């Protein structure tokens, strides 16, 4: 059973060397009418090779946080640093899998979409890029659609292309925003397994947003729980990779997190 403890900075220190440091970050959107605060003073640290999961209610600012780490937004308060350097702009070292279905380039086929960043950002040769792309497209079971344009794909297929694209880049940090939400149970499991296998091979760092507690436990080694809008850090779960689905400890952790989220009354309305 997971131990519920009061947070102490020392406890976090045992993890791998810090790669990403989010320190007291407040993120705001300025709209013509008003200023919307998406997250408020969020702090956490992600170590090298962490599989860091963000879990929280809809609209609490998970995507916004991911975008800030991706370099698309500047915090109005606090600082985001990667390897000690402040994040100022996006870059291919932080490959992003977005939540939206329209993240594929409509003018490129599935293969070209996966190959494009390999050629352009990773500067692979054409043959190598194509090989790698085909490899990952196969992993997400899209071989039959390899020459299709995105607008002829189903929602889930589009997301799988984006996943393949992200994984094929084998980046230092992979930022994934609910990548498997549009997938059926079976495909989802395959994709989760592929992701974990890739991690075994290359030990990249991944920041992963999900709505499913079970998925969070399966994918992550650490989970950050966010409170409803505006998102603040509510709790952090460590050592998630020590639980196992076979001995029931995973189920117990899932129930604990579940109860913790559901007991909360402040649902963002």
């Amino acid at each position: 059973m997971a131990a519920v403890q009061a947070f102490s900075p020392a406890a976090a220190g045992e993890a791998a060397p810090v790669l990403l440091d989010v320190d007291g970050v407040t993120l705001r959107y300025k709209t013509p009418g008003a200023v919307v605060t998406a997250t408020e003073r969020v702090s956490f640290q992600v170590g090298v090779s962490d599989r860091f999961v963000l879990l929280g209610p809809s609209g609490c600012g998970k995507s916004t946080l991911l975008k800030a780490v991706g370099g698309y937004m500047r915090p109005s308060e606090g600082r985001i640093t990667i390897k000690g350097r402040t994040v100022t702009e996006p870059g291919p070292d932080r490959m992003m899998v977005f939540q939206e279905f329209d993240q594929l380039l409509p003018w490129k086929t599935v293969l070209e979409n996966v190959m494009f960043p390999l050629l352009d950002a990773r500067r692979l040769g054409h043959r190598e890029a194509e090989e790698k792309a085909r490899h990952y497209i196969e992993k997400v079971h899209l071989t039959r659609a390899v020459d299709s344009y995105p607008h002829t794909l189903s929602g889930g297929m589009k997301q799988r292309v984006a996943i393949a694209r992200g994984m094929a880049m084998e980046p230092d940090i992979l930022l994934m925003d609910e990548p498997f939400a549009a997938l059926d149970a079976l495909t989802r499991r395959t994709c989760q397994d592929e992701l974990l296998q890739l991690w075994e091979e290359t030990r990249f760092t991944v920041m992963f947003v999900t709505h499913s507690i079970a998925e969070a436990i399966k994918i992550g080694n650490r989970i950050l729980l966010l409170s409803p809008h505006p998102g603040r850090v509510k709790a952090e779960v460590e050592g998630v990779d020590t639980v196992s689905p076979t001995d029931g400890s995973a189920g117990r952790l899932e129930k604990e997190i579940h109860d913790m989220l559901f007991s909360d009354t402040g649902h963002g309305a």
Partner: protein
Amino acid sequence: MATARILMRSAAGPASGEVERARGLLERAWDNGFVRKTLLVVVLALIWETYGRLLDNPLLFPSFTETLAALADRVADGSLPARAWTSIKVLLMGYAAGVVLAGLLTVLAIGTRLGSDFLETMTAMLSPLPAIALLPLALIWFGLGNGSLVFILIHSVLWPVALNTHSGFRAVSQTLRMVGRNYGLKGFAYIRKILIPAAFASILTGLKIGWAFAWRTLVAAELVFGVASGQGGLGWFIFENRNLLEIPAVFAGLLTVITIGLVVENLIFRTIERRTVLRWGTQT
């Protein structure tokens, strides 16, 4: 460590007010689009003045101040405002008619395949024709006078507006179309309530281009076409002064066109943009 641990985090203190970085007056003024644009216009005027003086050929290209003097003159004697007003009246008629016709053609084009062929073919055929080519027909159908001018204005407004509107309609996402038809919207209601707002950015571009070309055409048409009687508009003003070699007055007329263009862009089109596509996030 063999078990997972949940570490509770105490809630952070109440957020402080946003830390507005102190910013200088200059920097803030620079953030204001209006200030920037005004500056830009001033710089352009300065360039004009300098170039005009260097060239020192007022019969070809008067300096900005000479032009301003002529402008003041002609505004004071009331001739320029009267001419401008004459032009604007005709222009608005032609523009409105052109936009309405473009709307009709596009509605037809969206509704039926033949309509779409028709629009494409007509645009490809007619839109490269210069206004002067339509003159004989205009004369037969509308005689001398504003009727013909309006006809020619329609010719220059219709095609760009129709092309942009049609292309905008065709780019509306499949999902939005399906939503509209889900509501049972059909025909004109569908176009008005779904396609037009969804394609608004494109339509606005068409309207801007149409507006600009209406001016061009009006000035040029009054020139080829003259004025039936009465005093004529800005185009005639320019042409007459050109013939009288009152070049600063010619440039005063052109400056009027420029000024009207700036005012319309910044007061009308910008405002529409701010209230629509920018607010909706369909354009940044």
